[in-house]
């Protein structure tokens, strides 16, 4: 979630530095780069995971290292966000959509040598839904009624009600299968069934994974992967240029041009599940008036925002939905950028001179920069924003938990999370029974075409009600050694999946 803070001064210096470094690289020649490792890779990621157990921590940094590498679930999510077989090689769903029967892969062992069977699956799910569970997504698995091991290679999961996203949800990092023998220690020594086994974690520095040579599935090309934790953009740029790392999953947009122009690198621009929104406290005046929210929507110039904040590397959104999703509908034209319309709506709402409000900004570059640009855009229609910088922990307490805010800017990174608007107690304070009923129907529907219609209807309601300001979808901007292949361009779920990565000459 959190990224880097970039001030104007820092950016300027970054530019000077990158130009300087380019000149130096020319002199140093490409000689050093010739020492390519054929089967090892060093990947830089911004944040160090606090633990390595994805089933008891919400941090994206955990998933980036272990998801699909060390740990696997019954299903897995692929690069396009579709569900693929995982530890369950196939499954059947009963007529009423309540009973899922999974056939488990055979010959699977955990990295500590213990065998994988149906008992591990029941253990893992019982751990998620347990009373004292620390699973960050526990609510997603609440529909589970029971998990039964029919035989060592068959598991039956019964649901309380049909749940359209169930196969996706069990493919998330939060539902990976862990063994009763090792679950306790996964935070420090993760033991999974995946194609890569954990070797060591030098805290503050790196995590090393090695290929699991007895992996039950297709053997990956890489033999060793090192994740290095580098938070500073200038430092990361230098590390890439010096050849100290082979790639990174997400590079700050302001330095991408350096790498795009350098034949030693390739830049992969893709989408993520992160909708950047102007979160609006719908329970508070004057935002409880739809006209005010619509006026704000008219006052937002998304293209200026995208240019200013992400250097054009992002897609605009008109509702709370990721553009790469097959159910997506483009609603960016619902309230086009139109200052006169905005002023007229404000006048109708009884606020012809505008109003003032606070905008709480978490410590990520996209939020801080968007905040400044939005403040100037809103000023044009008389809305004065006071920008308040907060840390993540403070944001979680003030904004998310206590709803003590007017406006905030944040990316919601969970896949398919439009359902959060159905909860009137959520921090948006949006109370629309009609919408809540629609989401309930959507959750219980398993037919794809019907689900699509319902999802589109949901997007439309949010866009028309202008519940929040819908700004843009965060881009994933990876920078990799040009000779590496098989990296995910899009990020439909958090993770840097190693299985297809390989060196080509």
């Amino acid at each position, binding site marked *: 979630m959190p990224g880097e803070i970039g001030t104007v001064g820092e950016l300027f210096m970054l530019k000077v530095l990158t130009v300087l470094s380019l000149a130096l*690289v020319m002199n*140093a020649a490409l000689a050093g780069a010739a020492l390519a490792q054929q089967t090892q890779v060093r990947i830089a990621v911004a944040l160090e995971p606090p633990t390595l157990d994805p089933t008891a*921590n*919400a941090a994206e940094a955990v998933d980036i290292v272990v998801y699909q590498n060390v740990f696997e679930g019954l299903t897995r999510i692929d690069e396009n966000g579709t569900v693929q077989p995982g530890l369950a090689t196939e499954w059947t769903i009963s007529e009423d959509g309540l009973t899922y029967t999974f056939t488990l892969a055979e010959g699977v062992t955990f990295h500590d040598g213990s065998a994988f069977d149906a008992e591990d699956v029941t253990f893992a799910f019982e751990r998620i839904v347990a009373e004292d569970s620390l699973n*960050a997504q526990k609510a997603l698995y609440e529909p589970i009624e029971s998990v039964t091991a029919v035989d060592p290679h068959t598991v039956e999961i019964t649901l309380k009600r049909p749940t359209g996203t169930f196969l996706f949800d069990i493919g998330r990092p939060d539902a990976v299968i862990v063994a009763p023998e090792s679950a306790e220690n996964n935070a420090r020594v993760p033991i999974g069934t995946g194609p890569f086994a954990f070797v060591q974690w030098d805290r503050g520095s790196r995590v090393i994974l090695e290929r699991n040579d007895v992996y039950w599935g297709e053997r990956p090309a890489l033999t060793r992967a090192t994740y290095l934790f580098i938070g500073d953009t*200038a430092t990361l740029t230098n590390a890439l240029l010096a050849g100290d790392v082979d790639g990174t999953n997400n590079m700050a947009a302001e330095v991408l041009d350096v790498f795009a122009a350098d034949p030693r690198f390739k830049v992969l621009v893709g989408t993520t599940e992160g909708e950047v929104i102007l979160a609006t406290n719908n329970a508070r005046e004057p935002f409880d008036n739809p006209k005010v929210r619509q006026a704000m929507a008219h006052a937002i110039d998304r293209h200026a925002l995208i240019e200013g904040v992400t250097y054009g590397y992002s897609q605009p959104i008109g509702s709370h939905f990721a553009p790469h999703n097959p159910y997506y509908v483009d609603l960016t034209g619902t309230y086009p950028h139109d200052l006169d319309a905005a002023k007229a709506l404000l006048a109708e709402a009884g606020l012809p001179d505008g109003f003032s409000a606070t905008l709480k900004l978490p410590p990520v570059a996209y939020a801080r920069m968007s905040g400044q640009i939005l403040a100037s855009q809103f000023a044009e229609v008389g809305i004065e924003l006071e920008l308040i910088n907060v*840390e993540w922990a403070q944001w979680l307490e003030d904004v998310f938990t206590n709803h003590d805010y007017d406006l905030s800017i944040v990316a919601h990174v969970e896949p398919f999370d439009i359902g959060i608007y159905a909860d009137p107690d959520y921090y948006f304070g949006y109370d629309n029974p009609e919408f809540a009923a629609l989401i309930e129907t959507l959750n219980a529907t398993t037919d794809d075409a019907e689900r699509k219609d319902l999802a589109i209807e949901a997007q439309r309601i949010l866009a028309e009600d202008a519940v929040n300001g819908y700004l843009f979808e965060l881009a994933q901007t990876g920078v990799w050694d040009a000779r590496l292949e098989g990296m995910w361009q899009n990020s439909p779920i958090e993770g840097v999946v190693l299985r297809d990565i390989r060196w080509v000459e």
Partner: protein
Amino acid sequence: MTFVLRRLLGFAATLFVAAAVIFFLLDLLPGDPARFILGINASAEAVANLRIQLGLEAPAWQRFFAWIGSMLIGDFGVSYTQGAPVAALIGERLWVSLPLALFAMVLSAAVGLPIGIAAARRRGSPIDTGLMVLAQLGVAIPNFWFGMLLTLVFAVGLRWLPTGGFTPWHEDPAAALRALMLPGIALALPQAAILARVMRTALVEVTGQDFIRTARAKGMTMSEAVWRHGVRNAFLPVLTILGLQFAYLVAGVIIVENVFYLPGLGRLIFTAISERDLILVRGITIVLVIGVTLTMLLTDLCYALVDPRLREGGS
């Protein structure tokens, strides 16, 4: 030995007050560690479970004395977010930060003191002016910027040294040493510059004193007089600065470790604060306070060694 005893008592009192300030100030910080760990999709119930597990529900004064009590027997608690013992987390980071700080300190003394002496010996000459301009520059350059410059030249350009990162000592001591070169130099530069200026001023002052004239009158050359009597007397203010420098180094380490992605104490405290890992923040801060006050104590005791007048309460 009242001098030593007084200093020791002061040391203990400082630690207690610092511990109280650290504990209660951090307790006021907004942000719930449990919510941070579980994220925005976790239920209130899961967060409450974790708060109980982390022992966050007891009143502040109870937690304070429990914390102090367990620290006295060497138990610093268990990190909220990382689930590992705080003492172990700090211990493994000290293997990076301590050598780094020591290296920087030795380097700054090795570079700064000779420059200061050289400048003082040639007071008023172009060499003196040149060296002091350089020192002024050294004081003004922020060490993170100097670190980046070093990286560009020696890591990205010449590829002599890594851009950052750290190989543990037991794996490859040579690589570990190489990893500390650039950050050490970046840290040492401003300190060396300060030392050079202080050394020069102190020496210049001392050489005007009567005892130098007496030494000269006894037939010593100027160099002999300065070496045998001047430097030792000029060393008092330099010692003070060296002691103070440890505190500056600690602050510098936080920034430089982030520039060179070194797994040291500075980076640890940086992440611990943003993750509201309060028990870890407290542990690190108290270790730093102990480090700084201990250096002050040692500096005070060193005064007594260098200057016999201080040994017996000024008598």
